[in-house]
């Protein structure tokens, strides 16, 4: 009758539920959440878009001068991620030479527009 | 038959069916021909104690279609029995009468590769949609989804 005993213990104790919108669920630091791009660091190498398994990253025009290894590069493209297409696998982060694209430990959003992009 | 299996034992038993080689630790590969497959598996079951079929793998190597039967048993070795089939009208006798689980794998291969297993009465559509065209086998290398093909009543566009 361990079920009965535990049932009544639970009835008298506090529930363990996290009242989500009021109190936040702890998110570990390693959590792979929403994708983010630091535009200053990006050298436009297209590695992330090549490696993305979901083909969520497209390269759009973004001419800019960037520093890389002490040299000044003239990049032409920058990445654009379709937020709802991203599978948060972290391959772009793993293969980015400068750490410009990375996954924040934040929750992604939800919305009515399926075409939202992160640039 | 519980002790470990050595290459010599397998080669001795399988002499008439084809040559055996030790590909890596615990894996013995036997190459044989389609008409001998039934007897090879029977011998492996009876003489070498292989009571379990792990899987039947089908490979399209662009010249021929290959079937590889992976068997194991209490000796924990894996016997791979490999055969090659021609690409046009591939057919092979079924093994589902001696290995009941083979029926599922055969149906799956029949659906995706178009290999006919003679004697298996139940080779119905298995993985694909009901209205998938009858002569298209998606896992063959030369198969490409046509740009204007309709599957499932829906035009499938490819990017």
């Amino acid at each position, binding site marked *: 009758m361990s079920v009965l005993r535990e049932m009544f213990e639970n009835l008298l104790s506090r529930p363990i539920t996290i009242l989500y919108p009021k109190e936040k669920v702890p998110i570990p630091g*390693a959590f792979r959440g929403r994708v983010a791009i630091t535009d200053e660091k990006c050298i436009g190498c297209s590695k992330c878009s090549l490696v993305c398994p979901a083909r969520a990253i497209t390269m759009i025009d973004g001419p800019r001068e960037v520093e890389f290894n002490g040299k000044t590069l003239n990049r032409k493209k920058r990445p654009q991620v379709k937020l709802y297409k991203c599978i948060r696998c972290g391959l772009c982060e793993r293969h980015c030479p400068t750490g410009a694209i990375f996954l924040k430990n934040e929750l992604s959003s939800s919305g009515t527009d399926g075409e939202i992009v992160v640039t | 038959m519980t002790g470990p299996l050595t290459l010599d034992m397998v080669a001795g038993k399988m002499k008439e069916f084809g040559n055996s080689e030790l590909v890596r630790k615990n894996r013995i590969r036997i190459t044989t021909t389609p008409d001998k497959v039934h007897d090879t598996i029977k011998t492996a079951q009876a003489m070498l104690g292989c009571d379990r079929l792990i899987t039947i793998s*089908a*490979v399209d190597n662009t010249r021929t279609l290959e079937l590889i039967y992976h068997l194991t048993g209490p000796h924990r070795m*894996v016997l791979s029995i490999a055969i090659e089939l021609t690409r046009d009208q591939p057919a092979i006798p079924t093994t589902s009468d001696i290995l009941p689980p083979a029926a*599922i*794998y055969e149906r799956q291969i029949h659906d*995706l590769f178009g290999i006919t297993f003679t004697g298996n009465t139940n080779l119905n559509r298995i993985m694909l949609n009901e209205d998938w065209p009858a002569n298209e086998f998606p896992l063959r290398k030369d198969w490409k989804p046509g740009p204007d093909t309709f599957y499932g009543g829906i*035009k499938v566009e490819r990017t």
Partner: protein
Amino acid sequence: MPEVVVSIGPHHPALKEPVNFKVVIEGEKIVRLELDLSYNHRGVEKAAEQRDFIRVLPLLERVCGICSHAHSTAFAKGIEEIMQLEVPPRAQYIRTIIAELERMHSHLLWLGVAAHVIGFNTLFMWTWRDREAVQDTVEEMSGNRVHYGMNEVGGVRRDLTPAQVTAALERLPNLEERIKKYVDMVNSEETMLIRFRGVGKLSKEEALRYGTVGPTARASGVDYDTRKDDPYLAYADVPWNVVTDTNGDVYGRTRVRIGELWESLKIVRYCLENLPEGPIRVTAPRNAPTGEILSRYEAPRGELAHFIRTNGTDKVERVDIRTPTLANWTSVAICLVNQNLADLPVIVAAIDPCLSCTSRITLLDSQTKKTGVMSFDELIRRNRSRDQGLVRP
């Protein structure tokens, strides 16, 4: 009594995944059944031939959400063996830890689902509550609750920090206590006993003959366990036992799974305490040499086999995934005959079906007599006269 065909699925509350059973019943007794598993076919094997080794791992991980680490490890292991890479021991240990945590979460999940299909929602809630501890550990280590993304060819992507190891070790005693409670509950709870005992019986001979794998086979006394038979990762170093049972029914499968929870806990603890130092990956070459391998892996549901053939490029020529569920399907149809309709969800759940891995059809009885088929789908089709056409883009 006339035979009635009940078509269950693909949308059905007992089935969290699309599958269709056409069950022929007489009264409440099952006469025979036809399984239709093709609703989930995606063509992963074809896609795997078209993607390189970097991009194929996330794809294979998503073959199944529950045993995602199993698929990616089986593939990475096979490719490493073809490339003859020496994976560092620390990577092997980390892979083992994740694999065993995955087994624990899968078995706890299964216990909950088994309780749910017999309507015992309380146990369902409790097991899933305790599963959260495992999920938290995995999330801290890998960064995601379900698709871990830990593997890459040549090692693992993330290292374990000492803080993560201590946090994981701290969670284990609590889990241990809970597992003890579940052993107690399963052996003493009356409704579970009457629904599980003697249901879906499979003798040892049948289990061998129909090629069952994993806990289903071990519940019938067949001690096949790939981790012992063909040791991979760190299993050769870790002391652990194969759990078997002689009952052969759903009760036996429950006991095997709870026993494996216990063993997994032991393995995780050993690996965390004896985590070797060193690098976590070696750099893999871009192309793999020509070769082939049958990579076997003991997934939570049973033996998973990836047959990999490479052809010297950075893509595989063929990867053939044989999932444990597919190997177990034949035995389900054997167990189900002459059982009660009410037992169908229990027996099907007892092999822990993972249909997204499997996605295949099997039609068991070839001499199907013509009966009055009243399928749910057809009824619905008759019921609603609205537009049935699909939306064209």
